[in-house]
């Protein structure tokens, strides 16, 4: 009766994918790791992240999170803090994964540059069975992560932590080794490398072609950051002006602030809305004391005695022209001066192609990027591949990682003459926005704030400002996730069109459209599971494999060694939505270990009454159901369903001649407090009398 | 009016324009004929014809036809009651032939209370035909000498003065007069109404009836019944189908029962109702239903100044 692949007719789309997954450049299973956190399955969540993402600690901190921009919870209140949840996993649950490889291949692959693209390529190639060696010109790994991202945003330990796990796969990193000087394409070939992947990134700062750019005090952004990141200091004056509106400009400003000049300001072409970085970053920069000048363009750098004294600016008319190209225009005669004794250029990065001397065969663009075949990632020279910023010209960390991952498969296919596909890149329709009329039906739960270092302490140091989620906060944040694209679906072969699901859904999602004979559940499904339990034909299931509705957890309890020694054995079915409010979840678990085993489900509405019967069948002496009260219910009114179902179950049990004290239902405010402990002890007492 | 159809005393009286009295005699829940004989002795002379109920409220009692014969032997004129609940059309026609052969001349046709009210709620309710179809069937037997199947009778036909019941207090109220018309069209010669306590509502119904001229096509006897106690009043109000007991009556009986004067008050109320309905246009008589209290009938008839009964 059960089938392993969802099937449906005609226009019923059931392979719509969550927008967070499709927005991610590396197609991370964002929704699924969030769902695992929501259920307290942290190690599984970390392993899931790691399956696709080799740099979770770094991503969790500095990714631009396009997933959050597309998160469907933007329609209800605010997106899920997907990136911060990834950091939570990387910081607390990292472990070595994947000990067994499918098969080992003889080829050695050289990767130039231990930045995001190179690390991702090495990670995936190692998993495919290749020996990889990364050649890194710096003494430490990370590339732009280490050079350009300040430590108050990305501690070095986070980078190193991620890289450690990549090395555990067998990847070797040779530091202080530069291509073109320490090794060359020829030397690598002679050493037996079958393929070379160039992922050197864009290490130069772009410079402005204006008067005064070589005055003393005019600094290159990336060099400035690198210097501070490595030495903890840099030579700046008292009045710093950063030119640029992106993440690097913000990094420069906030880094400069920590060096305690009198003033730090930022001037950029873009209006506040147009700035190409996250609101959070901009707000933190202003919060820390930088002054922001929007919509001004640099005309010339003013100087006196060979030193910078200020920047002459023009008012911006527009940044992007009608064809949406970057083509800024200015108002004539709108000159004005911003005073500064230090100017930091953070207007983008450029490549340094000096290593190509001696290997002219590699074609490059006029802008200084390497040309590659978009499918094979091969350059114009056989056996040499490239990817990352050096190919893209500009990109985010995750876009670089995506390049590395795609290149790894491409290299593998070329070497093995195969056509392996990563199906995660395939085109899928996206779950559409929530229908407006449903938004009021969904409980509003605001995004949890990231605890940060108090502002008065920040500028004294370069310690990490964002402190990370606590366990309870992480779970509660993850529990806001609506499980888009992985909710309930109807098996057309089993559905009898009885309309039960249509009538019971609190969000009015299932429909039997005119002309159809079976029900259809669309992407607005909130995964409450009520219809799954109510369906008389058992035709509805969850698309997600992560939800067992309590079944596996219950069975696992009885696999426990010495479980028969727990007397009287009480199974407590509880709702995970109110289990992370106050105390640590372990507290109750440990306090009652001699009598109780807990089966937590993300929403008790998913539990079928026959599972309560099963608990008794497997050997429970008592079953205690603790559900949430109406005011705290995540799905707004499941209480009446729990009441109805437990009353029905009690009736069935009575009909079997069972003492009804053995099955109790209570509604509690918290699954972890005194209430639960009291209820359990009372039940233990009751059971002694039975 | 028209010619005598059955030759019964009741019919003659009514057709001569006299105010008629009928009363109820409940057959026993046993096979003892002496019970009926005793009741007959009590009632003799105080009414013009006497209804023998047919398993009233679906409780098993001696059959109406058998009891009717016993009553005839005692010198009283019976009105046989026939419900549709317990017999199909074959049994009904057979019983009617037998009743006529035994001397019955008056017949009240009823649907019958649902079996759930009686002492055998598990019994199958037959309801092969309803009361209107029964009336029609009896009329065709009498006037056309044909069975319901259309075949002709071989021997003499039963000649019944056909009666029907009507409940002025049932719903839909507006339809009740039309339903009465339907019964009369089907062949009803006389009507006995459900027990009246709510006289104003009864007047409303009679207005509809007389507006349709139905009082000129059939004789209407108003149903009355003396209450014994507040308990009986309550029982009638809640447990007996089709009854309308106004709060005023309930209150009077409650007060009287408390003062141990239930029966007196009950008779008093009954007499008040009789007095009022006598004045209503279209009423040709009263039907006294003194359930298991046949002794009350002589008192009521006397106090209503309707004794002795006229002869024709």
């Amino acid at each position, binding site marked *: *009766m059960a089938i392993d692949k969802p099937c449906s007719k005609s226009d019923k789309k059931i392979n719509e994918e969550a927008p967070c997954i499709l927005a991610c450049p590396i197609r991370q299973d964002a929704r699924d790791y969030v769902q695992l956190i929501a259920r307290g399955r942290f190690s599984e969540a970390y392993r899931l992240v790691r399956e696709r993402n080799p740099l979770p600690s770094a991503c969790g901190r500095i990714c631009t999170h396009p997933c959050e921009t597309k998160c469907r919870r933007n329609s209800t209140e605010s997106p899920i803090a997907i990136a911060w949840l990834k950091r939570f996993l990387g910081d607390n649950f990292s472990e070595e994964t994947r000990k067994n490889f499918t098969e080992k291949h003889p080829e050695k692959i050289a990767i130039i540059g231990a930045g995001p693209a190179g690390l991702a390529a090495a990670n995936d190639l190692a998993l495919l069975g290749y020996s990889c060696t990364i050649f890194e010109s710096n003494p430490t790994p990370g590339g732009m992560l280490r050079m350009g991202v300040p430590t108050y945003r990305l501690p070095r330990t986070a980078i190193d932590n991620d890289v450690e796990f990549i090395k555990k796969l067998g990847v070797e990193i040779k530091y202080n080794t530069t291509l073109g000087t320490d090794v060359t394409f020829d030397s690598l070939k002679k050493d037996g490398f079958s393929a070379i992947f160039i992922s050197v990134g864009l290490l130069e700062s772009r410079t402005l072609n204006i008067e005064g750019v070589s005055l003393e005090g005019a600094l290159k952004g990336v060099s400035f950051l690198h210097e501070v990141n490595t030495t903890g200091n840099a030579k700046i004056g008292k009045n710093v002006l950063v030119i640029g509106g992106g993440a690097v400009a913000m990094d420069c400003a906030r880094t400069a602030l920590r060096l305690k000049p009198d003033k730090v300001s930022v001037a950029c072409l873009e209006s506040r809305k147009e700035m190409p970085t996250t609101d959070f970053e901009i707000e933190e920069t202003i919060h820390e004391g930088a002054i922001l000048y929007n919509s001004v363009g640099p005309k010339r750098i003013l100087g006196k005695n060979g030193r910078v004294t200020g920047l002459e600016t023009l008012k911006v008319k527009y940044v992007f022209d009608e064809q949406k190209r970057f083509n800024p225009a200015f108002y004539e005669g709108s000159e004005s001066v911003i005073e500064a004794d230090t100017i930091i250029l953070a207007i983008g990065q450029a490549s340094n192609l000096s290593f190509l001397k001696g290997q002219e065969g590699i074609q490059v663009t006029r802008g200084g990027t390497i040309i590659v075949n978009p499918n094979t990632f091969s350059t114009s020279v056989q056996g040499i591949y490239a990817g990352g910023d050096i190919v893209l010209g500009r990109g985010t960390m995750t876009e670089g990682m995506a390049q590395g991952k795609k290149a790894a498969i491409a290299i593998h296919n070329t070497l093995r003459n195969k056509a392996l596909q990563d199906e995660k890149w395939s085109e899928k329709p996206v779950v559409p926005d929530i229908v407006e009329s449903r938004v009021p039906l969904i409980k509003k739960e605001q995004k949890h704030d990231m605890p940060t270092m108090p502002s008065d302490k920040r500028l004294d140091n370069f310690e990490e400002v964002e402190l990370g989620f606590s366990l309870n906060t992480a779970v509660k944040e993850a529990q806001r996730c609506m499980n888009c694209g992985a909710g309930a679906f109807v098996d057309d072969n*089993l559905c*009898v*069109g*009885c*309309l*039960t699901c249509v009538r*019971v859904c609190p969000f009015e999602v299932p429909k039997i459209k005119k002309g159809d004979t079976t029900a259809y559940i669309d992407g607005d499904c909130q995964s409450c599971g009520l219809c799954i339990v109510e*369906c*008389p*034909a*058992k035709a509805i299931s969850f698309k997600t494999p992560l939800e067992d509705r309590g079944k596996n957890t219950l069975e696992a309890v009885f696999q426990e060694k010495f479980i028969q020694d727990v007397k009287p054995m009480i199974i407590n079915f509880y709702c995970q939505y109110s289990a992370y409010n106050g105390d640590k979840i372990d507290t109750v678990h440990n306090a009652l270990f001699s009598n109780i085993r807990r089966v937590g489900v993300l929403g008790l509405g998913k539990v*079928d*009454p*026959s599972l309560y*019967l*099963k608990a*008794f*069948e497997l050997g429970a002496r008592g079953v205690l159901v603790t559900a949430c009260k109406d005011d705290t219910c995540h799905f707004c009114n499941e209480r009446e369903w729990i009441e109805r179902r437990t009353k029905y179950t009690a009736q*069935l049990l009575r*009909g*079997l*001649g*069972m003492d009804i004290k053995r099955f109790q239902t209570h509604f509690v405010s918290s699954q972890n407090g005194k209430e639960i402990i009291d209820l359990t002890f009372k039940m233990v007492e009751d059971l002694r009398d039975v | 009016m028209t010619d005598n159809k059955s030759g019964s005393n009741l019919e003659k009286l009514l057709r001569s324009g006299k105010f008629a009295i009928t009363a109820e005699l409940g057959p026993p829940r046993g096979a003892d004929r002496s019970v009926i004989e005793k009741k007959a002795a009590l009632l003799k002379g105080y009414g013009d014809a006497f209804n023998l109920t047919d398993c009233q409220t679906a409780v098993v009692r001696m059959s109406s036809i058998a009891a009717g014969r016993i009553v005839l032997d005692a010198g009283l004129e019976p009105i046989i009651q026939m419900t*549709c*609940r317990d017999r199909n*059309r074959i049994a009904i026609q057979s019983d009617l032939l037998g009743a006529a052969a035994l001397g019955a001349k008056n017949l009240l046709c009823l*649907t*019958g*209370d*649902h079996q*759930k*009210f009686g002492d055998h709620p598990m019994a199958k*309710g037959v*309801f*092969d*035909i*309803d*009361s*209107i*179809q029964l009336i*029609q*069937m009896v009329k065709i037997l009498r006037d056309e000498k044909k069975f*319901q199947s259309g075949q002709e009778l071989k021997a003499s036909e039963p000649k019944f003065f056909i009666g029907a*019941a*009507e*409940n002025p*207090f*049932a*719903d*839909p109220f507006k*339809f009740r007069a*039309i*339903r009465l018309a*339907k019964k009369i*069209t*089907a062949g009803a010669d006389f009507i006995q109404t*459900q027990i009246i306590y709510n006289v104003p509502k009864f007047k409303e119904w009679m207005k509809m009836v007389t507006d349709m001229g139905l009082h000129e096509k059939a004789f209407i006897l108003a149903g009355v019944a003396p209450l014994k106690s507040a308990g009986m009043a309550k029982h009638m109000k809640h447990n007996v*189908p*089709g009854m309308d007991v106004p709060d005023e009556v309930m209150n009077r009986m409650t007060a009287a029962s408390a003062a141990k004067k239930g029966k007196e008050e009950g008779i008093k109320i009954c007499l008040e109702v009789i007095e009022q309905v006598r004045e209503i246009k279209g009423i040709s008589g009263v039907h006294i239903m003194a359930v298991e209290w046949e002794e009350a009938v002589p008192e009521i008839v006397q106090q209503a100044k309707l004794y002795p009964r006229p002869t024709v």
Partner: protein
Amino acid sequence: MIVASSKPFQEIKQMLSGFKKVCVLGCGSCVTICHTGGEKQVTEIAAQIRLSAKLEGRQVEVIEDSTLRQCEWEFIDDIKEIIKDCDAILSIACGVGVQYMAERFPKIRIFPGVNTTFMGGPTEQGVFWERCAGCGNCILATTGGLCPVSRCAKSLMNGPCGGSKNGKCEVSQETPCVWNQIYDQLNTQQLLATMETIVPPKDWTTGMENHPRKMILEHLVMKK
């Protein structure tokens, strides 16, 4: 559709006592829609049988299965293999399905797990009312689309009787008097005159009186 209600578990337990390998068999048609014979109910009843056995220290093996319809030979033949070693089958299909099973598998004891009650439908989730008695001679054209055979306690043709009060049947305060409803309906459609006509006694030969009834469509019967 056919509506059936669950038998009390004690009765089921009694029927199945002594049998060691039992199959609980559901039906994907009417009884699924009225939530008494679908796969979900199969699971529930099987769970009760197992738990009851466990509580009393008995052994019983319970198999759970379901057919698309139990009133089709082909569909019940499909489960032949599954049930062949069973010594009892609790069918929670309607009485029709139970009989098909009994006829097809005469060697196995077949027990009915539901009480088949009436032909009707849901008026709201969880509430089912009788609508049709299968009299075989439909008169709905004259009664405004409301059936007095199935909805009048006395199946009157010239109703209502004297027990109709406040729109309710004398049998129960919860039961609407259908003749009252017919009156209102015909009134709305300005067809009240219909109710003044005397409806003659019904021809019951097409109804229950002539068990077992059958219908043959000659143009569908295939000669062997």
